[in-house]
């Protein structure tokens, strides 16, 4: 099996994403949506559903297309490129968590609506301590009557205001559990909109105190597996968004360097600007290769997939945040204005970097995976880099 594969279906997904985003995610459209209250466009969401995007990696029997999870990258990457923001990420994570950790009945209850676009869903996994580790939630669940009572706080519950369903992770008697709760059932005032650096995103803090939920809201399957899946899939999709975003911000910057004249010359002719762009491109090519490798083997080999995933998120993060930083600088005075689109990428890059583990987090986690004697990596195939071809 090859280290990187691109199926025909994936190619089609990517193409349809390109067309859709061209139409719906111009800079103007992005700015319009970010200035709106919910940041959401219901009509557009319907179109996305019609294209089948919301069931890509959900089981066929529940209305999904049952494609490999890695195929989602073919959507997330162009979304990043076009600065698209929608409940796609939140809904996809929730759907996949149900697919991994929900019982057949729970899946049958929720997944068809998700796959069809009728149900917008989201996940409440991170907490005020800002930890990216999702496996040990501190929001507390207790048994109460026939159901449970939840107490605690969650952060960055994306698109919660427009979501129908919220998956909330909790600690129940010393082990992690996940509860699927209808947003409408949340107490008044439980959600507070956060101020995020990415203005296109909508995040909410969730505070509950003795919030009672029914017995059937608890996912019956493997909750730790569902949380691990959310951690990995979140990192993969955000890495894809970052690789796409880097492409977008490179385009914007290069276009400026190709047309702006200072001191009588196109500024792209200055090595002080040209060479850093080449450096960015070189890392971008690498990050993109890591990303598609991670997508290819996402479900193939858990150990190597973890390595690939962490590498992809780490390098994509370094590259996008740097490229966006340079985009501001290389646009000169214009780059510093709200009006210049570079800031949209800059804010998005910061948001993505600190979502699902920043570069440092993933590199730190790679240390034992790559350096311990007898680690999975040691026995795995390593390629010879660069050098003269033929070598």
């Amino acid at each position, binding site marked *: 099996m090859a280290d990187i594969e691109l199926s025909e279906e994936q190619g089609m997904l990517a193409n349809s994403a390109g067309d859709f985003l061209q139409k719906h995610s111009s800079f103007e459209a992005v700015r319009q949506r970010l200035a709106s209250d919910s940041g959401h466009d219901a009509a557009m969401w319907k179109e996305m559903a019609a294209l089948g995007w919301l069931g890509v990696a959900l089981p066929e029997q529940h209305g999904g297309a049952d494609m490999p999870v890695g195929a989602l990258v073919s959507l997330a990457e162009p979304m990043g490129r076009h600065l698209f923001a929608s409940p796609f990420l939140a809904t996809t994570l929730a759907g996949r968590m149900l697919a991994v950790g929900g019982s057949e009945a729970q899946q049958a209850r929720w997944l068809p609506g998700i796959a069809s676009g009728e149900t917008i869903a989201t996940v409440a996994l991170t907490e005020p301590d800002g930890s990216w580790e999702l496996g040990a939630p501190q929001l507390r669940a207790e048994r109460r009557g026939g159901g449970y009572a939840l107490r605690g706080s969650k952060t960055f519950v994306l698109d919660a205001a427009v979501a129908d369903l919220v998956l909330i992770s909790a600690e129940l008697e010393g082990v992690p559990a996940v509860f699927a709760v209808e947003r409408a059932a949340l107490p008044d005032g439980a959600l507070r909109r956060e*101020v995020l650096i990415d203005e296109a995103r909508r995040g909410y803090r969730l505070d509950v105190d003795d919030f009672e939920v029914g017995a059937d809201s608890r996912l019956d399957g493997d909750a730790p597996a569902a949380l691990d899946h959310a951690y990995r899939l979140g990192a993969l999709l955000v890495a894809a968004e970052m690789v796409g975003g880097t492409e977008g911000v490179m385009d914007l910057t290069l276009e400026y360097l190709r047309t702006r004249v200072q001191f009588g010359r196109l500024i792209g002719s200055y090595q002080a600007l040209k060479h850093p762009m080449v450096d960015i491109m070189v890392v971008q090519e690498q990050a993109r290769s890591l990303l598609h490798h991670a997508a290819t083997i996402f479900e193939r080999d858990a150990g190597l997939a973890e390595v690939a995933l962490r590498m992809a998120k780490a390098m994509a993060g370094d590259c996008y945040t740097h490229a966006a930083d340079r985009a501001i600088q290389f646009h*000169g005075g214009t780059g510093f204005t709200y009006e210049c689109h570079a800031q949209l990428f800059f804010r998005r890059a910061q948001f993505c970097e600190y979502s699902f583990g920043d570069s440092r987090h993933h590199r730190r986690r790679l240390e034992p995976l790559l350096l311990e004697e007898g680690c999975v990596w040691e026995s795995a195939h390593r390629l010879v880099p660069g050098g003269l071809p033929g070598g």
Partner: protein
Amino acid sequence: MSEATPARPSPEELDAFRTEVRAWLKDNKPEPPDFQLPDSFMEVGTPEQFEYLRAWQHKVYEAGYIGLTWPKEYGGGGLHGLYQGVVNREMGAANVPFMVNIIGLMWAGPVILQLGTHAQKQRYIQKILSAEEIWCQGFSEPGNGSDLGNAQTTAVRDGDEWVLNGTKIWTSLGTEAKHMILLARTDPGAPSKYKGLTFFLAPVDIPGVHKTPIQKMTGEYGFNETRFEDARIPGDSILGREGEGWSVAMATLMFERGAAEGQAGGLSMVPLRVDDVVQLARECKRDGRPAIEDPEVRAELVRFVMEERALGLCQVRQRIPGLVTERPHAIMMMNKLVGTEFRRRLARFAISLQGANGVLYMGDPDAPDGGHWQRNYMNAFSATIGGGTSQIQKNILGERVLGLAKSY
């Protein structure tokens, strides 16, 4: 300045002065306002921010703690530079607000003192110190950011007046300013583009001057676009001579870039300190543990402390001729580049200590340090871009300090 060099104070005199300043600051440090203050004069975005800061500068002026080295006859203190150094350091230690009339105090004032007529000094200097008259700068234009020599704003003589037309951009304090240091083209037919420029001390609270606030990437305001449409200014508004505006502008930039002495003093911005980032690293958690326990964070913090320390020590070494023989002006010339880039990198790093909460922004009650570092990271670009981008600073250093050929 033509006055006799003021006497160097004895250590005892300085100590006594330090005690006095410290006591004054303790008694007079203003209460923090109930709104968020900007981090520098380039970020003054609301009238209430402006008035708070103007009042503070005025208070400092009345106490006689800025312009200590400026000539007495124009409202300064006529003292040795060591006195102002004491004030600046004590202000930094006391963490008081910065001066708001920075362009006047640091750039326009010094260049007027250097090149202005007696009448101009009398007219402008004292009111710069008191913050009665705020100054702004009109160098950049929409089509020429760093390429100042290409200024397209025109000044045409008409009787006793000059008539201005054109647009200046990035004018900070533009809505509050009474005067602008302005580079305009007075001779479009001059043999080189540099020779046709003249430097004006222009009123900007007059008819024909239109100011449009520019929204910054932070979402705040602070800069303006200033448009001149047949704006008429007095015939004697020129600093230096007609057609020699380029060299006056270059002299101004030497002050702006910290490469020449003569500023009035006082704090010019809220300093970003590595100590605060060390403290942040203790307070913020990454994956459940204080960020400061992460080995990569520790290594980075050490590098930042080292760099901050080294940059501080450069200011000390710079004053010892025997230790700067190779490149006497290197440290002064590099101040702008290294100071602004350091701030950008430090703010970016500070965000990385915050774990998932790094995505929170100003205004969120949970944002670490109130989103200070996120705002600072973005605002940092105004200084790595304004006053000649870092890339241009490197050209200048390569050419003037290292003697390398000009880059085209």
